[in-house]
């Protein structure tokens, strides 16, 4: 049993669960990783996150916390003396980091998902264009805030690095599925470099899903989503 009494309800493919794993690793924390099949959802999951019934859920002792960004902030606050800080210390920089993570979870999440299940070329293009816009904006942010250092957080990976970095495996899978570069060094060179540094980071690398396994999972998921959308209600 983990000494801090930490349990993480997760799935191997979830970028949101990955955020929590990275945060726990940054703080050097042991935890029980409980892999949920999601079909059916376990009693523990239903009890711990009755509102959304989703993973990730971090259970600290008997206290459950849901929503990945909120969990990461919790970890950073409780174990503020462990490892390195995840949120910036300056309130304004914190607001900026939170802003961009919220932006990513809205614009990137929706467009990258919708792009994969889009049923016509027009919709595919609109979503791809939105994805490109996100990447161009993040390139700007990276150039503006990293001050020439490797990560959005500077020398160390921070909230925004974790926020977007957690999507990188799915980004690679999307590239394989559409046979086209999404992260393109001719358009976002800094972001390409950043991605390489992120996936190689010690707190990240052991935890990334295998791309081939994720690809199979993604194909199955897309098929099911497309079929569900096509079914008359």
């Amino acid at each position, binding site marked *: 049993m983990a000494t801090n009494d930490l349990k993480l309800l997760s799935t191997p493919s979830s970028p949101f669960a990955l955020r929590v794993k990275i945060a726990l690793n940054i703080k050097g924390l042991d935890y029980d990783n409980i892999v949920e099949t999601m079909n059916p959802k376990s009693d523990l999951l239903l009890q711990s996150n009755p509102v959304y019934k989703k993973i990730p859920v971090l259970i600290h002792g008997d206290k459950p916390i849901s929503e990945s960004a*909120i*969990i990461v902030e*919790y970890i950073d606050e409780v174990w503020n003396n462990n490892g390195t800080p995840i949120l910036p210390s300056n309130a304004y920089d*914190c607001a900026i980091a939170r*802003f961009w993570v919220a932006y990513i979870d809205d614009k990137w999440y929706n467009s990258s998902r919708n792009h994969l299940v889009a049923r016509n070329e027009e919709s595919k293009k609109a979503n791809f264009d939105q994805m490109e816009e996100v990447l161009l904006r993040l390139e700007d942010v990276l150039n503006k805030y990293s001050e020439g250092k490797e990560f959005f957080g500077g020398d160390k990976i921070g909230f925004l690095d974790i926020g977007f970095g957690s999507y990188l495996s799915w980004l690679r899978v999307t590239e394989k599925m559409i046979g086209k570069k999404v992260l393109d060094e001719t358009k976002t060179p800094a972001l390409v470099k950043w991605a390489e540094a992120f996936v190689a980071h010690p707190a990240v690398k052991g935890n990334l899903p295998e791309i081939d396994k994720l690809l199979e999972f993604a194909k199955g998921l897309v098929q099911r989503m497309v079929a569900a959308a096509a079914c008359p209600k």
Partner: protein
Amino acid sequence: MADEVILLDFWPSPFGMRIRIALAEKGIKYEYKEEDLLSNKSPLLLEMNPVHKKVPVLIHNGKPIAESLIAVQYIDEVWNDKSPLLPSDPYQRSQARFWADFVDKKKIYEVAKNLWTKKGEEQEAAKKEFIEIIKLLEQELGDKTYFGGDKLGFVDVALIPFYTWFKGYEIFGNFNVEKECPKFIAWAKRCIKIESVSKSLPDQDKVYDFVVQIRKKMGIE
């Protein structure tokens, strides 16, 4: 150096109201700049929130913060000498953030909009969803005076602005929130007794007139 605080806002915006309440709770002097969203967006707005081009935007010493809950947290962190909005305990903070995020995730504004723009089945579905959301919030409130416990907190600030829109929801949606969710209304009435809240929120009748005006513009009978 004195702080320069500006709020770009639009008077009926529930999101803007959140920031107004937070600033009032902390006793912060600020300049209120009205954006008339029924006409063109000002150059200042486009400069300060180029990503979303929306209000509210808090501008502190020339630096913009967009997204109301992020701005409220910023205010709480910078002006941390009085009236804390977030609890000091990390677990309680995570729960406050969770429920404030819930208010936004459930898109009360959009769901409720269907109450005053749609009819028939769509309106009924919106009504059902709206009541479900409020009931879940009632459950979370429990026996507490406020979501923040004894005092106004982050979730209270996130949620109370929508109360100013209830007259429109009820008249056009043809239902009574107090009948369905009496605890919620009792909580709302307690909140608006607080000075920082009452002076930051527009009159329900004024908001109702605004809803009527918008419906006319949208060509809804």
